[in-house]
Structures are given as C-alpha cells and as structure tokens.
C-alpha cells in the first residue's frame, strides 16, 4: 500500500466491511463496540440493496458506495482506535483525513459512484450481517473478487486527489468569474 500513489488503479480481493452513517454513529457517538475486529481491515461506505434469503442471509441486488464526506469525522477513530488500513467510498475525504492516513498508514480508494452494477458482480458473497436493526445501514461483511477498478484517492504520502482537483477548481473559479465580468 505504501507504493500506491493518487490516481493509481487497483483491484481488491477479500473481505471488505460495509459501514455507514447509522452504524458509525452507534460505534462512536453511542460508544457501542463494533461486533467485529477491524484491525487491518478495509471499510466501504455503503448501504446495499439486498434480498433476504434466510435468517441472517442476504443476496446482493445492488451494492455500490455513498458519499464519504458525511462520515469524515469518524476517520480518526477508525484509524487510531480500530486499526483500519483502507477506506473505500466516493467523493473523497477532508485534508485532515488525508493527514491522518499518512500518519497511521492507510489509503482512501475511490469506488466509482453510481456504477454499482459492475461492483455487484464482483461481490462473491455477503458473508455476515451485524446490527440488522439498522437495515440497510447494518455492518456488512462482504467478500470480493477483483473489486474495481478503484482509483487511489488518498495515498500515504500526502496525495489527496479529489481535494487537489477541488482546490484547483476554486482557484480557476476566481479567474472564470473575472472573465465573465463578475466581481
């Protein structure tokens, strides 16, 4: 992971945990310990479309990703207290989260937002579901084969691609408005 740089394309094999607003609020604000060990894990910001096939058993209909910035404030706790190594989502994370990733040795991988159909085919199995009372914002244990292509959004060396693009866009905006005759 140390060799990854922003803009690189990666695919992922193995277990990825689905997390989201409601379950992260429960872990960090309501101080309920997560039901599974996240040390070394990859977490995906998501709440999937599923069909229940039995008690605790679900079939994936559409599993994509959601806007990570809503859960930005949980990044520190996930890295520091739970040893998470990768966060997956769309839209990127803040400058502060980028710094934390360099500090704790983690990456942000951009899942292509709105293109869940392809990702769903790469999902081999929904292995487990925790906290079903929060449906669909449960903690999901997914197993992927060839999940991607994912674009490295934040690397361990201070690169934060979506933030850089936005900052450049903000600078360009001042110039664009000037050319339009707008103060």
């Amino acid at each position, binding site marked *: 992971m140390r060799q990854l740089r922003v*803009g690189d*394309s990666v695919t992922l094999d193995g277990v990825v945990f689905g997390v989201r607003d*409601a379950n992260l609020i429960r872990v960090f604000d309501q101080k309920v310990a997560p039901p599974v060990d996240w040390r070394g894990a990859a977490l995906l910001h*998501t*709440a*999937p*479309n*599923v*069909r229940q096939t039995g008690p605790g058993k679900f079939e994936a*209909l*559409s*599993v*994509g*990703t*959601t*806007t990570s*910035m*809503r859960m930005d404030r949980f990044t520190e706790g996930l890295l520091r207290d739970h040893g998470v190594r990768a966060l997956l989502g*769309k*839209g*990127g994370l803040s400058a502060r989260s980028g710094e934390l990733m360099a500090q704790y040795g983690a990456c942000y991988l*951009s899942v*292509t*937002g*709105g*293109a*869940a*159909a*392809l990702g*769903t*085919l790469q999902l081999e199995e929904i292995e487990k579901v925790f906290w079903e009372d929060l*449906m*669909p914002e449960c903690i999901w244990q997914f197993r992927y084969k060839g999940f991607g*292509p994912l*674009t490295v*959004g934040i690397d361990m060396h201070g690169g934060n*691609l*979506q933030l850089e*693009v*936005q900052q*450049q*866009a*903000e600078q*360009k*905006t001042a110039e*664009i*408005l000037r050319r*339009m*005759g*707008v*103060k």
Partner: protein
Amino acid sequence: MDVADSFYSVVEGACRDLYIQSLKEIPPDIVAAIRAAAARETREVAKRIFSHYLQSIELGRSQNMIVCQDTGIPIYWVDIGGDLRLDGARLTAAITRGTERATREHPLRSSIVSPIDRQNRQTSTGERIPIIHFDFTAGSAELDILFMPKGSGSENMSFLKMLLPADGVNGIKKFVLEQVVGAGAKPCPPTIVGIGIGGSSDLCMTMAKKATIRPLGTTNPDPQMAALETELFEAINQTGIGPQGLGGNTTALAVNIESAWTHITCNPVAVNMQCWRAERRRAKVSAAGKVEFGF
C-alpha cells in the same frame, strides 16, 4: 371525461413499474451524453471512470440490474389533463401504494426514514413521502407521470440564497458557480445543474429541481435565460472537476434554468444537482387505463 374503474389500480401498477425500471434503464439522452463526454476526455483516470459508467449502464440494460444502489427519494411529477375527471385523493393513494409495492416486491432498498429518530418502515414511504407535484394541462385527456428516484448524493448538494435585487444577475452567476465548485466530487459529476430564479424561497427550490428533469439539448424558451444557461454551462466545464471529481473536461452535462416572477425586494436563486445517471421514467395513462412508458 371520467376515468375508468380500473384507472387507479392501473396507476398503482404503473408507478410500481416506474420505480423499478427507472433504476435499471438510464434515459437514452443521458447515455448519449455520457458517451460523448467519455470521448472528450484525455486523462487516464477520467477515461477509466467514464468506462466504468458505461459498463454499469450496459449491465443495467442487458442484465436487468439496478445501476446505482441509491433508490433515492421517490418524486412524482404528475400532469393532469384538463379533460380528465378524477379523484385526487384516490390518485395520491394509488401512487403511494405503487411506490410501496415496488419496494416490497422487487425488493428495493428503502431509503426513507423519519427525520429525527431515523426509523425505516422499509416501504420507501413515510410522512409526506412519496413527494408528488401536481400540474394541469388544458385540452389533454391523459395523466402524464414523470418519476425520478432522487439520489441523496446529489440531493444533499442543494443550495438556496435570498440575494438582494442589488446583487443583480452577477450575484446569481457567482452563487451558482461557487456552490457547484464547492460541491465538487460529492454529487457524482458530471451533473445536470438545475437552477431556480425568482419566486418565493420554496418555489425557487422546486423550480431548480424541475429544471433537472428537462431532456438534454433543450433550452429555456426565454432568450435571456437561455444565454445565461449557456454561459454558466461553459463556466462550470472550465473548472476541471470532471467525473467523480477526479479531474476532467466534463463537469456538467447541462445547466437548466426555470424561473418565476418574484417580489420587488427579492432575488432568490436555487441550485439543485442531479447526478450523472439522471434517472427518470415516464408513464402516460389514458382515461380508459392504457399505459405508455417512456422517459
């Protein structure tokens, strides 16, 4: 013209189908625009993202898959033909039941919760949801329903400002550009940027959303508004935000303006953004209960 007895159950079934189909089949004008935008990209990352978009669109169409996991807020734009005689309350109930049936039967993820306790009935409905906008067309004998499952990634990027008349049209241009750039990657660009100008605060926001359902390639009939649409469209695409905010040549698929007259001391402007898939599906229902689907 009175509607047939079967009319309301036909509407219920049509709304059920609208919800399910809208999530799987991306409108043809949008697909064409995404293809054209893909061809205009030069950077590797941007080309990769557009390729991913197009693969998912194709999977939705050919494998009957839901393209994006977000089933959104169910919103119906219902145009009632002036020649129809129907019961609005029964119509509303039928639309609501159709929404619930789509959710239970397919099944679809229910993305609708109560605002404070976050309770989910798993029906995609709740207090004041589905959202139904009614309008009327003189001389028509059909019910025209346009459905949009409004995704929250883009919906959360909604902005309203009560500008001063002294801020003028330049205030509008500045606000729109700054909000779209501030939204950045979050609404899944390239987006359709809907702009409302005038009205009251709530009408302004509704017009911004209505602007996003307009088919691509159409302009506001008022030449002044059309010129403003073009100017803002070009400006936004110069920012370089690109697909998924990872950098690129296309940040907006369209900029559409809807306007209304307003109070002498008001200058309201609203922005509503619609993500790259711009999901919408249409059903026209005749008084006799025949349905014709489209976009």
